[in-house]
């Protein structure tokens, strides 16, 4: 039979805004506590209690002390959920509540949830496997099998919040959360969703910690260095891991205006840069960060000089911080722009890191105040940038750039506008 003519698909770009924020972090639960801590330069880094670090020289992490998911989620239905899922559930619940959007039978088919996560809960996966190895396949708890799929946290969010539009998980290493935002924006632009709950989550666990330690990426993992996280400082000797989750409700501007939603910022640009030579290692002159920044600013249709600050992904890695400083210097000049690194406070949260930085950037814009990079005492000539050392300061902010660079190969950036929308 004759093939039907394809209907013209309306895929013009919509203006996309952030109308809800939820954060669960080692320096504060909820956006207000998170912001107050950021502003004051509070550190969430402390000795790990979740597992035994006695066999390692590295012992610190941005662990969320006394994390009680039931305080946000209620008591029921959490028994078989892992920590990564609980972090994601809490942050997404907070973000949805913050946005004042009510999910109903009428709108649920147009709402989506997208999570940036590379590991899922590697602890759940590994413990399930180890139980089967040690005690035989009949000894595993079948209710824990579904925790071993990486899309489990996102699915649990959809079940808890009754989201029936779509659910997706995006894995792209360090840039996972920002790439998840990109995917979510594309869902809106292709008319699959009118609003998406999007974010990133990462739990602190023995598997990830020991993995990074064995790869000698952690501070103090190489020799008897002092264990600390001091982005851009010349003493830096490796990263300190953290955990957390940050979620956002993003939607079309028109829909936000219609429902009189609070608007935090507009996402006006996205960029990305893959460098196959930087898979599994930092490269000082990697082309990835350059392409990420350039394509983000180009897509935002603004000038480099319009950007007020760069929410940096610097995490105290010797090469990594220099790589980002080098890229920032190329496009923004030396010491001409503020480059705060919040990982100095919360640690490296891997797949969640882009989301944590996005939350920090949005709150800095809302409050017209820059959070500091803490633990900064000695400048490094390889990192000739203004990292807002140790004390925050007020700044008039119209546009900001959020980077999620790393050593997995893909580097991504977002551009935000906080001006009059």
């Amino acid at each position, binding site marked *: 039979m004759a093939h*039907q003519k394809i209907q013209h698909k309306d895929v013009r770009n919509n203006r996309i805004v952030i109308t809800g924020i939820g954060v669960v972090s080692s320096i504060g639960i909820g956006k207000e506590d998170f912001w107050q801590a950021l502003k004051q330069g509070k550190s969430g880094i402390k000795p790990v209690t979740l597992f035994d670090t006695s066999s390692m020289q590295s012992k610190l992490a941005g662990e969320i002390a006394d994390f009680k998911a039931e305080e946000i989620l209620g008591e029921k239905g959490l028994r078989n959920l892992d920590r990564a899922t609980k972090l994601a559930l809490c942050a997404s619940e907070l973000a949805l509540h913050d946005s004042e959007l009510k999910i109903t039978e009428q709108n649920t088919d147009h709402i989506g949830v997208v999570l940036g996560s590379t590991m899922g809960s590697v602890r759940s*996966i590994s413990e*399930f496997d180890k139980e089967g190895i040690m005690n035989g*396949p009949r000894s595993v708890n*079948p209710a824990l099998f579904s925790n071993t799929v990486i899309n489990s946290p996102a699915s649990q969010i959809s079940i808890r919040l009754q*989201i*029936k539009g779509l659910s997706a998980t995006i894995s792209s290493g360090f840039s996972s959360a920002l790439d998840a935002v990109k995917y979510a924006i594309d869902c809106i632009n292709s008319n699959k969703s009118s609003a998406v709950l999007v974010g990133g989550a990462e739990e602190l666990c023995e598997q990830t910690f020991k993995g990074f330690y064995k790869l000698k990426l952690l501070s103090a993992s190489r020799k008897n260095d002092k264990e600390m996280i001091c982005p851009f400082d010349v003493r830096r000797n490796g990263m300190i891991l953290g955990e957390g989750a940050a979620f956002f409700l993003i939607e079309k501007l028109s829909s936000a205006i219609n429902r009189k939603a609070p608007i935090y910022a507009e996402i006006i640009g996205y960029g990305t840069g893959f460098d*196959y030579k930087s898979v599994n290692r930092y490269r000082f002159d990697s082309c990835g960060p350059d392409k990420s920044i350039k394509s983000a600013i180009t897509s935002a249709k603004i000038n480099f000089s319009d950007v007020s600050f760069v929410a940096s992904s610097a995490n105290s890695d010797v090469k990594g911080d220099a790589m980002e400083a080098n890229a920032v210097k190329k496009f923004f000049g030396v010491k001409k722009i503020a480059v705060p690194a919040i990982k100095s406070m919360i640690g490296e949260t891997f797949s969640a890191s882009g989301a944590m930085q996005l939350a920090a950037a949005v709150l800095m814009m809302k409050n017209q105040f820059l959070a500091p990079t803490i633990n900064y005492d000695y400048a490094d000539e390889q990192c000739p940038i203004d990292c807002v050392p140790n004390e925050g300061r007020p700044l008039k902010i119209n546009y900001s750039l959020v980077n999620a660079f790393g050593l997995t190969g893909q580097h991504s950036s977002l551009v935000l506008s906080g001006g009059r929308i």
Partner: protein
Amino acid sequence: MARRIVVTGIGVVSSIGIGKENFWNSLINGKSGISDVSLIDVANFKQKRGGEIKDFNPVLYMKENEAKKYGRASQFGIAAARLAINDSKVMLSQLDSDRLAIIMGTTMANIRELELIDEIWTRKGEDFLKSDPIPKYPSHSLAFSIAQELKINPFCMVIPTACSAGNYSIGYGYDLIKSNQAEYVICGGADPFSRITFTGFGSLFAMASEKCQPFDKNRKGMMVGEGAGVLILEELTQAVRRKAYIYAEILGYGLSCDASHMTLPSIEGIVKVLRRALISSGIKNSDVDYISAHGTGTKANDVAESKAINVVFDGRKNLPVSSIKSMLGHTMGAASAMEAIACVLAIKHSIIPPTINFETSDEECEIDCVPNRARQKKIQIALNNSFAFGGNNACTVFSKYLS
């Protein structure tokens, strides 16, 4: 003028054949890829069989010292990607990397590296852990390793939405080209044979011991498989300009979310994803000539899928719905990509692959499952179903390309 997206290359690594010719010949001859499991120690398991790939030699697709850098899923993905790119007859070096993407779906990705780490950790102790397997494992490595091996810098992403991941990746590739963000997308899915998967489905009492029998009254469950399927998607005018062979067109796709149960399917969720796929493609349910089923062979899936299909297609009697999982087992993240390839080849050859091992019909599964023998039929439009753990459903729509 709306942009159109076509399939110009396919590559497949499967337990019934590596490469599109071997794969297709096996499909239409109803060849089973199920055999005794050798990749994991099944001494303590009740079930001993699965869809392992016995004859995969990674050094046919990459140098030996390169192959060592990658986990099994990545090796599958690289092999399938190379086959697909060669099939599309494109020189990658001539493509603008800003307009190029690699989107791969998976459930467990390079899980065998983690399983090896777990074995050493439990049996010997953590002091014996080496650092080599560690960077191979995290799931993004599935797509990134393809870029690394091909020495290209595209936009890379892994979508680990389990049993529907292949369709999610094909769908996102479609979106990227449709919205003029890409011209050439390497997309699909890959998964290796996984002890965790084998253990998990066994623990749910959802796994068959002998054979996979989708839609059969006496079906005992799914079976674990492995493999990779990669499709090359291109924007139509570019494909035509370079005189590419066009297998089929992608008209659209649908996603839905059950929001009900982590492991049980929902008829409502399946009905929604089918309807959304039809709407997104601008077609009516009467336009569909064939459905490649999710058809895992579990009691729950097959009845839910049959009922949902009958709701959406008004109980049509002349709608063939076959499941190639009857031959491959469930290849997890690769499944819907391999099923997409089956759809594309079915359209090309006007033959529908069968559901094998079909012995007794189930009155709860009132569909024509094309039992045991392939069937000649002209196919204009085919649907490709996939429903994952967590209720992530995806359905892609393929059509014969009419110039």
